[in-house]
């Protein structure tokens, strides 16, 4: 059991400030996902927690102890890297056992622990192999095995799925979710740029932009109540439509946001009307790209669509799902 507490964390490289005054409370046993566009500082924040990077100012606590100056190996954390960082010249067994070896554990105990982890991750028959003889999914499991075997209180994941192909990614996502179930007491911090991963796996999501925390909340909170244009645009696929001008002014907002699935079609002309430019048919859904006076809008229709390209369409947002944003792009409640 270990909670993580970040208080006013700043991190600079030279004059470039990567992390700006981040404060965060991660509860013990929570699965938390840092998400944001590339360069937002999410990986740096993770590396600061791991101790691979030193924070410039602020306090970092793990398990209620300040760890600012504690080296990575003494923080009780384990890390799964994007590249997995498996030692190419060591067998799977040696890879998993390396940390135990460094702790000076007796050989027999290392063997027992590694074999137990191997069994848990279905790697038993691969223990003598070198990493290069493993498939992508198996490598991922070895990387996770290295984290598990140490009994770390905190697992840190740095975009672990981004090297896998789409099918494998879905499978590994499920495996990590299952791992979380099997280790309910382990706090997990997971970094990704993929909002789908964030939505599907997280207990809570931390959205970062340009080194700042934009919003923290459960996936549905972020989806339903984004606190800013940025978060609203980042969470959800396809992206939320942002409409300015008359329709927004009518609702006393600078901008209103409507998700593609939250439009209705009207027979009579509305404030938002335009021509259907292009249609993408996915089978389960159809995406309609409508060119309007406020820009291109995306509309989602379940199943097939009856509308033809070039047809004039009148769109009406469903009132209860309209998000209003003020002058500073923050949500108006």
């Amino acid at each position, binding site marked *: 059991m270990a909670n993580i507490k970040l208080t006013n964390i700043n991190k600079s490289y030279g004059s470039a400030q990567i992390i700006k005054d981040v404060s965060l409370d991660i509860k013990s046993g929570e699965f938390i996902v840092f998400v944001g566009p590339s360069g937002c500082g999410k990986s740096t924040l993770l590396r600061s927690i791991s*101790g*691979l990077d030193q924070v410039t100012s602020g306090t970092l606590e793990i398990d209620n102890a300040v760890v600012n100056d504690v080296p990575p190996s003494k923080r009780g954390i384990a*890390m799964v*890297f*994007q590249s*997995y*960082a498996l*030692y*190419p*010249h060591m067998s799977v067994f040696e890879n998993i056992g390396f940390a135990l070896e460094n702790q000076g554990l007796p050989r027999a105990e290392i063997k027992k622990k590694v074999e137990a982890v191997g069994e848990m991750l279905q790697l038993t028959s691969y223990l003598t192999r070198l990493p290069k003889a493993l498939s992508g999914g198996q490598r991922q499991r070895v990387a996770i095995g290295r984290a598990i075997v140490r009994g770390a209180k905190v697992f840190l994941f740095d975009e672990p799925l981004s090297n896998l192909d789409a099918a494998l990614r879905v499978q590994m996502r499920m495996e990590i979710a299952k791992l979380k179930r099997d280790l309910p007491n382990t706090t997990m911090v997971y970094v990704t740029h993929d909002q789908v991963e964030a939505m599907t796996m997280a207990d809570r999501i931390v959205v970062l932009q340009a080194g700042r925390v934009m919003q923290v909340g459960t996936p549905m909170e972020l989806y339903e109540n984004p606190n800013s244009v940025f978060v609203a645009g980042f969470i959800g696929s396809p992206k939320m439509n942002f409409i300015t001008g008359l329709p927004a002014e009518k609702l006393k907002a600078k901008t209103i946001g409507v998700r593609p699935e939250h439009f209705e079609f009207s027979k009579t002309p509305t404030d938002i009307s335009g021509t259907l430019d292009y249609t993408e048919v996915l089978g389960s859904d159809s995406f309609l790209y409508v060119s309007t006076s406020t820009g291109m809008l995306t509309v989602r229709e379940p199943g097939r669509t009856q509308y033809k390209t070039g047809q004039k369409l009148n769109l009406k947002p469903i009132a209860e799902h309209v998000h209003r944003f003020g002058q500073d792009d923050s949500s108006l409640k």
Partner: protein
Amino acid sequence: MLKRFSLEPSRIALNIAVLIIIALWTFPTAGLLISSLRDKNDIAASGWWTALSSADVAKKGRLKDKVDQVEKDGKFTISGNVFEGADGVSGKVSAFGTKVQAPGGNPAGTVATLDNGQTLVVNVDGSYVLTSPTKFTDEDSGGRVFYIASQPPRFTLENYQTVLFSEGIGRSFINSLTVTIPATIIPILIAAFAAYALAWMKLPFRGLIIAIIVGLLVVPLQMSLIPLLKLYNAAGTFMGVPSKTYLGVWLAHTGFGLPFAIYLLRSYIAGLPKDLIESAQIDGANDFKIFRRVVLPLCFPALASFAIFQFLWVWNDLLVAIVFLGSGPDQLVLTGKLNALLGSRGGNWEILTASAFVTIIVPLTVFFSLQRYFVRGLLAGSVKGG
């Protein structure tokens, strides 16, 4: 790469052009190797390029004595073979004669008329028949015969025996090994640790240290000799030990080899994936352990490259060994020995060629068996680093 554009007639010209260049490049070494295997008289008598074809050699011999004469049909004959008494000479006789002025006056197999009505026939295989109408007396027995023999190519290992065991090359060979092996391993070890520190460890002045090392790459070696020699003498006197020791020469080679070694290894080690090093840090390995268990096994190719460089450089070095190691028989290295022979045995090509070949055979073997690593090191050392 250009395969697709090449024209067929030009391919033949291309092959020939490359063959000519290769011939130009290998001829000097081939001359050395072939000469070292020839008889010392042959080396002096004819060019090495004739060694593979039969050579015509003018020889002289003595015919048998009167005691061997046989009387037959009123004539007296002495028969034998010109090659019998001639040491180590064999082959085919193309011509013969009895006067020194015309050693090849008569083609083989023809009858030559001598004084007193005597006749002589020497056949191609060297057998001869000397015929006389009267009995041979003391006066005309044991006469001289001259002949032109065409000899097949002859090769011998005698030169090697000479240089290895009586010219001191064998001893120098061991001295060279004594110098070379530690002078290769020590800088590898020292440079690898330094390269790791400069690539992955947090330390002040890192950039400055790297810049200095790169700068030292081009310092002319000769200029360090005097200051170092003074230092060695002072240290030797101070500690009461001889100033010219194997330890001294190892350290000198290490010092001179370090800039390149650190430069080469650092760029390789810095290129290892960052994740690996950090993963090991999180796994609780200290830098010594990371170096030993993760970095060292992974930079084996770079270590091999440098090892070959340093080996060749130390083995082939003349100057450092001359200056820092004595010239006594149990210290003189191969290159030094060869240089000494160049002075003292300047005309004895059989000694020089065999000695030279002994000195170059080791680097050539190393070079051909480990060429891959050597080339890789060259590329890393110059193309990438520039």
